[in-house]
Each structure stands twice: as structure tokens, then as C-alpha cells.
């Protein structure tokens, strides 16, 4: 499915005057400059991809263009006239809308209320919910989102929220639509639908700025590609002139090694983690699985299949009932994060901003939060150890920062992910469960993380990887379990691990996830 979408490559020549032009834009936060002298043309009817490593400044540039932040220097022009936006609303009025990389929706409001927030439709004095719900249903259908207009956004899974966010940008006619990693949280189906939408927008003459770390998307979709590195503009090329490998090398500024480490030899060992009949409220049904030391167990499935629920239930983070849970032969009676961690199992959440990191705290406090008891045997907190561990982590995990006193929230997504990884590894686990290990991570960091997973498995740890990115699942896993509607639907090993097989198992019989809820 994904394959099909990506193969149809239709680049069209777009020339003519730019709808939006950035000249010499720069941005600094206090003493730290994150963007220097970026000059960029965006033309009507083109898909303009912006690529770069994590922290290259892509999101920052988009925030400047869409009025979410004010540039420290440089100017912007629309149709030849200079513009300056004091806030996002002005930019939206001018026809520029940004879909944020992170989810920015009011959790207590319904989908329709979120979509129309700030521009509610009304009749006489009252808001016209009927009309808004109808319009919402239309746009939701367009982006392939199955949420109901009146569902509370806080109750939706992340992927659905991401689609809601995209739907919000499509509600009105725009000149420029900026999508900042729109597919990071989506699975293949949704990605295909989204790519189609982007194409149709382009056909309508809208300029789409598209940020993604999935270079195959960029290759399939973009007309032109702009590469940023370390806050500087490397250049803009017609997409037809670049292949994925060239793009990647432009981004990182050096030659790339292999993305996936070579597969390991199968091992004979007792399972490190054994789970029997694990059922999680509103999510997963009677899951039985195990993982051995030295093995990567991949878990695939469509969004909403219940993979996250299964693992969160296992960790006691959701109400769940288990037949049996055994870690290294030891039975765990009532799993919770603490006992699981003590037994050697850690879970790395897919929601790194909401559940993974304390955004307002520094690196150190985040790093040692989980393993506080292991790092500090007594009551006291050893701040020297904390600082040492922080330095060590920054080095080992290659976290790119300019000062150790930076807050976790100020790190770019990739660096946050590395920090999160380092955080769970502080507990020195024997089983690591990673939910979406590379969501929103650039290709350079990705291979680092893959190599890292490989290292720890080679060191005799067991690893479970939940991923919606098929190449990643296939490239990393020794064994793949595919979930469908809350149940394990298939197990793939050896050469059976292919993207086609995973997709088939994930989608075959039940094509809607609602069936499970009814059950």
C-alpha cells in the first residue's frame, strides 16, 4: 500500500513568483543562535521539503514563517510585500498555517470545538454546533480520521490527534500549509491518505512546506528540497536531482554508514520475559509472548491495534489482568513500574513529551528520575554522580547541546529521544521495551539508535520494539509479532519478516479496530 503510493512520483516544474519569501532569517534564544541567515522561496503549487538532522532548526524556521515566534533578524515577504506577523493568527489570516510537530490541542474540548477554536461558526448569538460538526466530519473523512466530531480530544490516541491537527489546517483555504513531521505518529494507511491530500493541495495551487525524517516520503512527494544543517541553510535542490542517500548525506554533512546493523545469530536461552494471558482494559486481549536475551522482538500492527496498551498494561501503568508474568524465571505477582524495573524490565513511552520527560527540568533530573534508587542507595541524592552521569550520557548518546543547563523541553526531538533512552537505561535493565524508538528522529540519529539497540542486545539483553515504521521493524527484529484489534494475529520469523507479511497480518481479516471495542 505504502509502496504503491511512494512509487508514483510526480514532480512538476514550478516556477513563477514565490508566495512567501524568507530573506536572511535568523533566530536566537538568549546567547544561543539556532538559525542563521536562511533565505528561502516558497512557490504556489509546490511541495517544498525541508530536511535536516534533529536540532537543525527546521521547526524553528517553520515557527518563524507562521508567526509562532518572532525572528531575531531578517525579513519575510508575501507576494513581494514585506510582512511581519506578531502572532500565529495574523499569519493564518495571511494564509499561512502551521501544523505543529507536537500535538497542540485542548484536551477537554471536542474535535470539532478544537478545529473551530478561535473561529467558531455562529448563528445569531449562538455557536452553530450542527454546522461545525458536519464540516468537521467532512474534513476528518478527508484526512482519514475515524474520530467523531464530538469525541473529547483527550480521549483519542496520539495518531488520531495528529490527524485532527492536520484537519484543522485544512479547514479553510490557505496559501501556505506547513506540515512539521505530520507522519511521525502515523502508520502506513494514514500516511498514504495524507500524501494524497498533500498532492491534491498542490494541485489546487497551495504551497506545502513539508518536514519529514522519512526520506522516502520526501523523495516521493517533494518538488524541491531545502537542507538545513546546524541552523544554516545548505541549499535548495529540485527533488528530482537528489536520491535518498544524497539527501541523507547533505543533512549530516558526511557519508553515512549502513542504516541497520546486521542481524544477529539466533540464540538459545531461557526467555528473559514471559507473559501469559495479559488483558488490558480497553486495549489488549489475552496477549501471550516472550522474549529471549539477545533477541529483538518486534511488535507490528496498525495504529490503535493496542500495542501501547499491551505494554503499558504489562508495566502496571493501566488496569490489566495477567495470567502470569515471569522475568528471568521470577514470577511477578502484581506488576507495576517499580517492581518491573527492579526485576529488570523497563518501558520507554511513545509519548516522550507527555509521559517521558519533565520538560521544565534540566537534563540531570530527567536522566536519573527513573533509576533514583539504583543510583543512590541511601536517602541522599548524590549530585556529583548525577552530574557525572549527565556528562557521560551526553557523550555516550551524542546529545547535541550547547550548555549542560538546558531544559529537556528545549532539546530537539531527536535529542529528547536519546535522553529518554539514556534515562531508562540508567536502571541497567535486562529487558527493554521501546515504543516507537525513532518517532520524529532524523536518519543520522536513527542509525545511532539502531546501533545502540543492537549493542544492548548483543550484550545479552532482550529488547521489544514497537514500531509503526515497517522498514525499521523488518530491519531490526529477529522475530515479529503482529497485533490486530487487541490480539496477537501472527508471528513472523526469519525470512518471513517482510513488510508485506506484516501489513497483511495487521490488516487482513478485521479492517476496523472498532470491532474489538464492541466485543
Amino acid at each position, binding site marked *: 500500500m505504502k509502496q504503491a503510493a511512494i512509487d508514483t512520483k510526480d514532480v512538476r516544474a514550478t516556477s513563477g513568483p514565490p508566495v512567501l519569501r524568507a530573506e536572511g532569517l535568523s533566530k536566537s534564544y538568549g546567547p544561543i543562535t539556532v538559525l542563521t541567515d536562511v533565505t528561502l522561496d516558497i512557490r504556489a503549487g509546490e511541495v517544498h521539503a525541508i530536511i535536516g538532522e534533529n536540532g537543525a532548526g527546521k521547526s524553528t524556521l517553520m515557527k518563524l514563517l507562521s508567526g509562532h515566534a518572532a525572528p531575531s533578524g531578517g525579513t519575510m515577504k508575501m507576494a513581494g510585500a514585506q510582512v511581519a506577523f506578531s502572532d500565529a493568527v495574523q499569519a493564518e489570516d495571511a494564509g499561512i498555517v502551521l501544523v505543529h510537530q507536537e500535538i497542540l490541542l485542548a484536551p477537554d474540548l471536542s474535535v470539532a470545538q478544537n478545529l473551530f477554536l478561535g473561529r467558531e461558526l455562529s448563528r445569531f*448569538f449562538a455557536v452553530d454546533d450542527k454546522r461545525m460538526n458536519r464540516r468537521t466530519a467532512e474534513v476528518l*473523512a478527508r484526512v482519514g480520521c475515524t474520530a467523531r466530531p464530538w469525541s473529547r480530544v483527550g480521549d483519542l490516541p496520539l495518531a488520531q490527534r495528529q490527524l485532527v491537527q492536520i484537519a484543522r489546517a485544512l479547514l479553510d483555504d490557505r496559501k501556505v500549509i506547513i506540515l512539521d513531521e505530520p507522519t511521525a505518529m502515523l502508520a502506513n494507511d494514514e500516511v498514504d491518505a495524507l500524501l494524497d491530500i498533500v498532492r491534491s493541495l498542490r494541485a489546487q495551487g497551495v504551497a506545502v512546506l513539508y518536514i519529514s525524517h522519512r526520506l522516502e516520503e520526501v523523495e516521493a512527494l517533494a518538488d524541491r528540497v531545502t537542507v538545513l544543517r546546524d541552523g544554516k541553510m545548505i541549499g535548495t535542490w529540485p527533488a528530482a536531482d537528489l536520491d535518498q542517500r544524497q539527501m541523507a548525506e547533505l543533512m549530516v554533512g558526511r557519508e553515512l554508514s549502513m542504516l541497520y546493523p546486521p542481524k544477529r545469530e539466533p540464540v538459545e536461552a531461557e526467555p528473559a520475559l514471559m507473559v501469559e494471558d495479559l488483558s488490558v482494559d480497553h486495549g489488549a486481549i489475552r496477549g501471550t509472548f516472550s522474549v529471549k536475551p539477545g533477541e529483538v522482538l518486534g511488535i507490528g500492527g496498525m495504529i490503535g491495534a493496542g500495542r501501547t496498551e499491551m505494554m503499558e498494561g504489562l508495566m502496571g501503568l493501566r488496569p490489566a489482568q495477567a495470567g502470569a508474568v515471569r522475568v528471568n524465571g521470577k514470577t511477578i505477582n502484581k506488576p507495576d513500574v517499580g517492581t518491573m524495573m527492579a526485576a529488570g524490565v523497563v518501558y520507554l513511552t511513545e509519548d516522550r513529551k507527555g509521559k517521558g520527560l519533565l520538560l521544565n527540568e534540566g537534563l540531570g533530573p530527567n536522566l536519573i528520575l527513573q533509576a533514583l534508587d539504583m543510583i543512590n542507595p541511601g536517602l541522599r541524592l548524590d549530585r556529583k554522580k548525577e552530574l557525572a552521569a549527565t556528562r557521560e550520557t551526553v557523550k555516550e548518546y551524542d546529545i547535541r547541546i550547547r550548555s549542560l543547563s538546558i531544559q529537556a523541553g528545549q532539546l530537539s526531538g531527536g535529542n529528547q529521544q536519546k535522553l529518554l533512552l539514556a534515562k531508562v537505561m540508567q536502571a541497567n535493565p535486562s529487558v527493554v521495551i521501546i515504543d516507537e524508538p525513532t518517532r520524529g528522529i532524523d536518519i543520522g540519529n536513527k542509525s545511532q539508535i539502531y546501533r545502540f539497540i543492537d549493542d544492548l542486545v548483543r550484550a545479552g539483553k532482550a529488547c521489544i520494539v514497537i514500531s509503526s515504521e515497517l522498514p525499521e521493524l523488518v530491519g531490526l527484529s529477529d522475530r515479529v509479532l503482529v497485533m490486530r484489534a487487541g490480539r496477537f494475529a501472527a508471528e513472523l520469523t526469519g525470512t518471513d519478516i517482510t513488510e508485506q507479511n506484516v501489513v497483511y497480518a495487521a490488516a487482513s481479516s478485521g479492517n476496523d479496530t472498532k470491532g474489538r471495542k464492541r466485543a
Partner: protein
Amino acid sequence: MSSAEIASLPESEGFKIRWGDLAPFIALGVIILLGTMINSNFMSANNLLNVITRSAFIAIIGVGATFVIATGGLDLSIGSMLAFVVGIMIMAMNALAPALGPWAIPAGAVVALVVGSLCGLLNGLIVTVGRIEPFIVTLGTMGIFRALITYMTDGGSLSIDRSLRSAYRPLYFGDFLGVPYPVIITLVIALLGAFILYRTKYGRRVTAVGSNSDVARFSGVHVGGVRTMAFVIQGFCVAVAAICYVPRLGAATPTTGQLWELQVITAVVIGGTLLRGGKAHIWGTVAGALILEVIANVMVLSDMVSEYLVAAVQGAIIIIAMLAHRFTSSR
């Protein structure tokens, strides 16, 4: 999803009963049942009317507080503000009485509404322009309003002119087709509040701001404006309560409205509005006000607890009500 399917979507969840939202009404029912069992007089029409009428003050102010709390704010100054507005209103009415006669009453009421709204505006502006915690701001203005009323009464009391008394009295004690005026006023205010909160753009933005103010800001909502306006609504509601209050007690003293802020906030929270903002239940607030008033009434009617322990029993009942709420709504 085809457009035919879309057209057939139900318009809202209107018909699905949300137990969580009903909790305050169920709690009210249970307490009324208990009251009936404890004292046979409880159910007398007279007693019920008294209780309902009396709950008007907390309910009316509570409607305003629901707005403030829904935006994520908090107003501790309402009790003092009520006293201050009552004081100003009485002074205005007394001053106008010689010239206007009974017309001094509506004139005074208008003065009250203006002053109340301005007091709310003051709170709102300090909170939004000064970007200070509402808790602290309104704690400060609470002291200020309380001091002003003490000053205005010279530490004693400020009563309404005898000549106005009888003309004004019916506003609290009178009724329309058997429904006491304060109850009617409460209903009107609650209806208005519910309309504004659930059916207008402003109401939408109130919950949006309380739910996530960053999102609201990015969506072009003037967060400061919405917050300030909520405080103004609060001030207006306080003034309406003041207008109902004066005919009942006829005077302002430095202790008027003392600790009402706590009662109002309790009513709002019992009613199901979240203190962190983002979710608001106008009718829940009204039920909450009734619950508090009924509890107090039952305490007076029953002779079971020592006078000293009344406050303890009330506190315990509120906690138990919230616990019950929690466990019914988590279903």
C-alpha cells in the same frame, strides 16, 4: 466515510447519560432523602422554599465562579466584594432616596452592577496584565474590599433607608406564581450562564483557555481577554447576588459575606467543575449550592450533633459527597 454516512451521524452525545455529570444531582437527592428521614419537617413546603431561596446567593455567585474556574482561575475576593458592593449600593440608594423615592432602588441596583463589574475587571486586569496567580491577586483584593467596607461602615453597619425597606423587601420575600423571586433570578442567571458557556463563542473559548491556554493562544483566542471577561462576569454575578441580598438583611457590615468565597468554590467543585479549568457545569454549580444549603438546614433541624461540631459534620459530608462522586463517575 461517505457524505451520506456523515449526514446520518447523531448531532451530539446528547442522549447518552453521563453519570459523572449527574453526580451532584444524585448527591443532592441522597441528602434530601436523609433530611426527610431525620426530620419530618424537612419536607414541608415552607422549609423547602426557604432553603431553595436562600441558596440563591451562593448559586448566583457560583455561576460567575464557574466561569472564572473554567478558565483556570480562582476568585477568593467574592465574599468581600459582595460586602463592598452591598455597601456601595446601600449608600447610593440612601443618597438617591430623597430625590427619586422608590426609584432609588433600581438606580442603586444599576450602580451595584456597574461597581461589581468594575471590581471584577480590576481582579481580571491584575491577573492577566500583571500575570500573577489569581489566588494571590484575589487574596489581596479580598483584603482590600474587606477593608473598604469596614471603612465605609466605620466598623459598624450601614443600613438601608427605612423608606426604601418596604418597597424593596418583596424582591427577596415575594414570589411570582409561588416561585420566590430570588429563585427566578437564579434560574435566569443560570440559564444565561449556561447559554453563554455552552452556546456562544465566548463560552467555547472559556473552556479552551482553561483546558490549554497555549493552544487557545495559537488559535487566535485572546487569552487575557477571555480571563478578564470571566472575572467581570464574576463581578456582575456578585452584584446580582448583592441586589438580592440587601432586601433580606437590609444592611452591610464588615462581616457581610465573610467566607462565602469558600462556600462558592465548594459549590462549584461539588458541581463537577474542575478546579484546574477546562470543564464547567453551570447546573452542577446550582446543585452544589443547594447541597450546601440543604446540609446546613438539616444540621439546624436535627438535634443530633453538638453545636460545636456542626462545622465538622458539614466538612465530613462534603468530603463524603466528593468521594461518592468520584466513585460513581469513575464507572
